[in-house]
């Protein structure tokens, strides 16, 4: 009896390793091996062809001396400064509207979520056309307000325009996250506040917003991750211009590794970008995450 239990355990053990074996092999080839390469590249000078030379932290020093690094850091910061307040406030408002809507809920949700499944290349093409100098957006603005906006052709507007596009794409998604957060808030809190004579405005600031904390943190984390991963929009629409105002980390990693043949520099830059986004996420959680207790 004891023997058969032990052999059954042995069989399970062999089975487990056999089943997960392919995954370990796959991860060794496409995760661990590239990981080793990532570290080696980051410490090397290489052009894909001539022998690789280990230069230790030269790439790191070069990156901090490179004005382009500070440009893309500033551009990514600008993007977050436009995008996060815009998408956060709009999607909270939208979520509150969703929760008020008694009819057509499905239609509203669909219209906003459809944007989220747009293809990166296709929606970049659409917005290039819509926001072009003579495009529909400018026609509308000119006919009704007499103004033109150089959406993608002015260094001060281009990143903002990209932030608008990305907001178009993600607002519905984030609003659903907030909607789930709103639905978790006990109705009694609002009733009690009503009895105490609190206005809707006070209720929003004192009840809704504090109790949405975990959803807000969640959306901020998603938005920061997204900001460090922007590539398709600037590649398709502006090529990083005008005057490098829409260069991003991934644009520079792509250009340096595959057009300038400096994979070492690009690998180090990708480690720095990942580190920055990770650090920013931890900082955000430290600063705004609160333990909220529903009682």
């Amino acid at each position, binding site marked *: 009896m004891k023997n058969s239990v032990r052999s059954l355990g042995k069989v399970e053990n062999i089975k487990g390793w056999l089943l997960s074996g392919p*995954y370990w092999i796959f991860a060794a080839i496409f995760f661990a091996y590239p990981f080793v390469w990532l570290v080696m590249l980051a410490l090397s000078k290489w052009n894909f062809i001539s022998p690789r030379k280990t230069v230790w932290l030269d790439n790191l020093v070069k990156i901090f001396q490179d004005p382009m690094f500070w440009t893309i850091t500033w551009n990514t910061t600008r993007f977050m400064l436009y995008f996060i307040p815009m998408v956060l406030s709009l999607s909270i408002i939208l979520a509150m509207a969703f929760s008020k809507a008694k009819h057509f809920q499905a239609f509203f949700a669909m219209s906003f979520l*459809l944007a989220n*499944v747009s293809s990166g290349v296709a929606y970049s093409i659409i917005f290039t056309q819509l926001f072009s100098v003579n495009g529909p957006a400018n026609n509308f603005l000119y006919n009704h307000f007499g103004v033109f906006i150089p959406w993608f052709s002015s260094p001060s507007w281009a990143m903002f325009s990209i932030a608008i596009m990305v907001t178009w794409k993600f607002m519905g998604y984030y609003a659903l996250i907030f909607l789930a957060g709103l639905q978790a808030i006990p109705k009694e809190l609002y009733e009690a506040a009503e009895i105490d004579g609190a206005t809707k405005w006070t209720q929003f600031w004192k009840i809704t917003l504090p109790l949405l904390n975990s959803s807000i943190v969640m959306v901020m984390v998603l938005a920061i991750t997204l900001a460090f991963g922007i590539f398709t929009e600037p590649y398709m629409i502006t090529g990083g211009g005008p005057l490098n105002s829409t260069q991003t980390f991934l644009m520079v990693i792509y250009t340096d590794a595959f057009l300038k043949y400096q*994979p070492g520099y690009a690998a180090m830059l990708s480690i720095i970008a990942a580190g920055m*986004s990770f650090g920013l996420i931890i900082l955000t959680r430290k600063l705004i995450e609160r333990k909220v207790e529903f009682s």
Partner: protein
Amino acid sequence: MTSRRKLVQNTRAAVFYTIMFAISLIWLYPYVWLFLSSFKPWDEIYTTFIPSHFTLKSYTYISTVASQVGYPFVRGLLNSIFIAVTVTVSVVVTSAIIGYAVAKVKFSGSSALFNFVIYQMLFPGFMFTVPLYVVIRSFGLLNTYAAMILPSLMSAWGVFMFSQSFKSVPNDYIEAAKIDGANFFWVVFNVMVPLSRGTMAIVSIFTFIGIWDNFMWPLIVIQSHQKMPLAVLLAVFNKTYGSYVGPILAGSVIQTIPMVIIFVIFRKYFLQGISMSFK
């Protein structure tokens, strides 16, 4: 008094729904504009909203003329379908099997496997772009379908999703099937997966959309227009023939449609997937 309050209420509701519809239409506008414009005569793309007459000129151009100048869009569409279907099927099948190993097989590496999967998900994908290119290049796989397919055949996220879902299936189901003489694969695909249909739908949808819309990776590893997926071929065509707006918009419609169809069919699971990702 009451009728007046009702009037106020009704007006409020009317204003509310009018605003909601207006904003929804603004959000749909880019799609509608794209769709209508792809059927417009080329000189009307910027001048009218509703075309004076519908024409398939942009579509015939992109399916015939474009391929004569070296941009085979029909083939690009088939490439995209081939890559996305292969990857999606592979990810679902392997994630189910490995997820089962994590959740239901007691072996000495099971918690290590689970921790490793979570650890992998911490790293942003873009960190691996450059080294993965070096690896693919050292295998001699540049400019092949394998370069686009192999690195995506299994997914840490898929394994995680299936293992979480399988953990909630009672062991009795598995024992009962085993007593009836079911072998391992029968248990996974005829007992476990049908009980986790929602997870399967979510993993399939997000994998399909992710690989269909993947842009940077195929852009890097594929040079030949014959092997490019639609997204990259469209981007390359857009760079060289940017003034052919009609055909580019027609290509964008074709690139968008599969994602929209999948979204509309599986929207229930899509919503589930969103709420699961933040639990």
